[in-house]
């Protein structure tokens, strides 16, 4: 019911507790339920969110109730220029004040974009560690840290929380003891996403993590350095594993899988790992063998392995329904395909992602092999070949599959 048609009268010292009910043709945001406004502010960069304090009396303190903080260093960039020392210093003060002055309502999410000056690695790491600790004390369920220019040194002791369920770290150093601390200190953690992280701690163990992604430009870097040290994975409740696009040096090894018994899906790209020992691959694939959905790519130097006629490196994938083989560009990949097909009796959907136009011809020896009915599963419904239009490789792959007993109606091309 429209009340006083004039805006709330000016009274000194009075607290505004309700928005003015001004009848207007245009609906105003101030008419929304009060608790929705901080939610809108949660979508903004933190600096902009606080700046809404000048919009009106109602908005003066709304930012204090926002439950998500997106604090980006970039908000303090100079127009057209970048971020200078002064800007970085302003940002530090901003976040300090924000955390101090906001209302003690629990946080849903804390996201931080932070510039690390390589010359001041330790000095620059002090504040973010404190901020993360503070966010966790505010019961943040999700924390995302994006560092750039250099790596953020994260103090594992900071990671203690009963509420944290999701953690994303971009360009953060995971020191020795990091995973043990997560295991003991963050008992609700279910999701861990790592990108561009040097991982010094190589025993990756967790009872609670369900979703783990060790992705782009991560690398295992055990300290003290010992090439015999092999990383290990022990995650009995893990449902999805992403392991891809790492920075790998000669001699680097892929992890020993101790326990991934609940695993259902995996995205594995070993492209940068050269010349892996057969046993490493065999045990790794064995650790994955319970999945229903797999996207897979071999590394360099695996040709001999793949072409070994006994194909013993490939375990049985009895639950596998969806298989996608990516970065396909070697003759040896055909052997890889045969190995997987022969060991996946329940496969329903196959996708081949062809990378280059190089391989228009299937090796003669293989075609003969294929004639022996390479594929025995009755459940295969579709085969999708992803390549550019008019790629001659499509036809050779198609012939290969036909020779192996797959019917033409099942094969599709996708660009």
């Amino acid at each position, binding site marked *: 019911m429209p009340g006083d048609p004039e*805006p*709330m009268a*000016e009274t000194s010292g009075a607290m*505004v507790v309700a928005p*003015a009910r*001004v009848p*207007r043709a*245009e*609906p*105003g*945001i*101030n*008419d*929304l*339920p009060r*608790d*929705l406004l901080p*939610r*809108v*502010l*949660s*979508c*903004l*960069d933190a*600096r*902009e969110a*606080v*700046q*809404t*304090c*000048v*919009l*009106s*009396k*109602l*908005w*003066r303190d709304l930012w204090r109730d926002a439950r998500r903080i997106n604090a980006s260093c970039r908000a303090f960039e100079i127009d057209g220029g970048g971020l200078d020392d002064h800007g970085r210093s*302003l940002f530090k*003060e*901003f976040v300090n*004040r*924000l955390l101090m002055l906001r209302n003690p309502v629990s946080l849903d999410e804390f996201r931080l974009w932070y510039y690390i000056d390589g010359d001041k690695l330790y000095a620059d790491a002090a504040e973010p560690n404190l901020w993360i600790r503070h966010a966790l004390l505010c019961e943040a369920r999700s924390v995302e840290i994006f560092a750039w220019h250099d790596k953020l040194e994260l103090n594992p002791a900071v990671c203690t929380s009963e509420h944290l369920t999701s953690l994303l770290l971009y360009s953060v150093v995971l020191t020795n003891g990091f995973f043990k601390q997560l295991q003991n200190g963050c008992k609700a953690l279910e999701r861990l996403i790592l990108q561009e992280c040097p991982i010094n701690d190589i025993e990756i163990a967790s009872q609670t993590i369900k979703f783990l992604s060790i992705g782009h430009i991560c690398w295992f870097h055990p300290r003290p350095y010992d090439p015999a040290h092999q990383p290990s994975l022990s995650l009995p409740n893990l*449902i999805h594993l992403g392991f891809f696009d790492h920075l790998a040096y000669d001699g680097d090894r892929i992890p020993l899988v101790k326990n991934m018994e609940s695993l*259902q899906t995996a995205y594995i790209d070993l492209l940068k790992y050269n010349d892996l020992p057969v046993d490493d691959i065999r045990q790794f694939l064995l650790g994955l063998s319970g999945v229903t959905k797999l996207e897979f790519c071999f590394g360099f130097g695996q040709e001999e392995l793949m072409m070994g006629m006994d194909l013993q490196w490939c375990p049985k994938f009895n639950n596998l329904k969806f298989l996608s083989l990516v970065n396909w560009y070697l003759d040896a990949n055909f052997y890889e395909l045969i190995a997987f097909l022969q060991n996946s009796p329940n496969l329903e959907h196959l996708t081949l992602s062809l990378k280059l136009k190089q391989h228009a011809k299937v090796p003669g020896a293989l075609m003969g092999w294929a004639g022996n009915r390479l594929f025995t599963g009755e459940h295969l419904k579709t085969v999708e070949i992803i390549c550019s239009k008019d790629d001659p490789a499509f036809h050779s792959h198609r012939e290969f599959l036909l020779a192996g007993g797959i019917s033409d109606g099942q094969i599709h091309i996708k660009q």
Partner: protein
Amino acid sequence: MAAAADSSGDGGTSSGEKTIVLVSSDNSARFEVREAAALLSQTVRRMIDEAGADASGDGITLPDVDAKTLAKVLEYCNKHAPASSSSSAAEAAPPAEGEEDLERFDREFVRVDMGTLYSLVTAASYLKIEGLLNLTCQTIADMIKGKTPEQIRKTLGITSEFTPEEEDEVRRENAWAF
């Protein structure tokens, strides 16, 4: 697209999938929707749990959502609903549409006038539809980004009761953000 003429309360599409009838606040419109779509609303989910078996009889009335808004909300739910409502966490059935397709849909979906947008965000909050709430709040937030206070006030229909002195005082108080 979601608006259906008055239909019998009996759930069941031609494919036999369970449906639920939702009724707008003024009782002027009844919508029969797939269960999977309706259950995107935690509020509806709770109402069904509480009402038990008799729920589907007369349909579920939503006292805080008018017909026009409900129709639009159900457009969203139909698009975003998983292919089957009986998806266990293990299967994690994805929505029937592809991700790019959904993004395009979302972008178009929020190209509405401010009044409709406010109604949608309020309805999404009441109905507890997380995806729609995120989408509408983000849309409003995007209207704030990069604008001066005066521009924001104009877009969002805010009247500032601050005198210039008061506004300065607020700015000083939070100088660390300006």
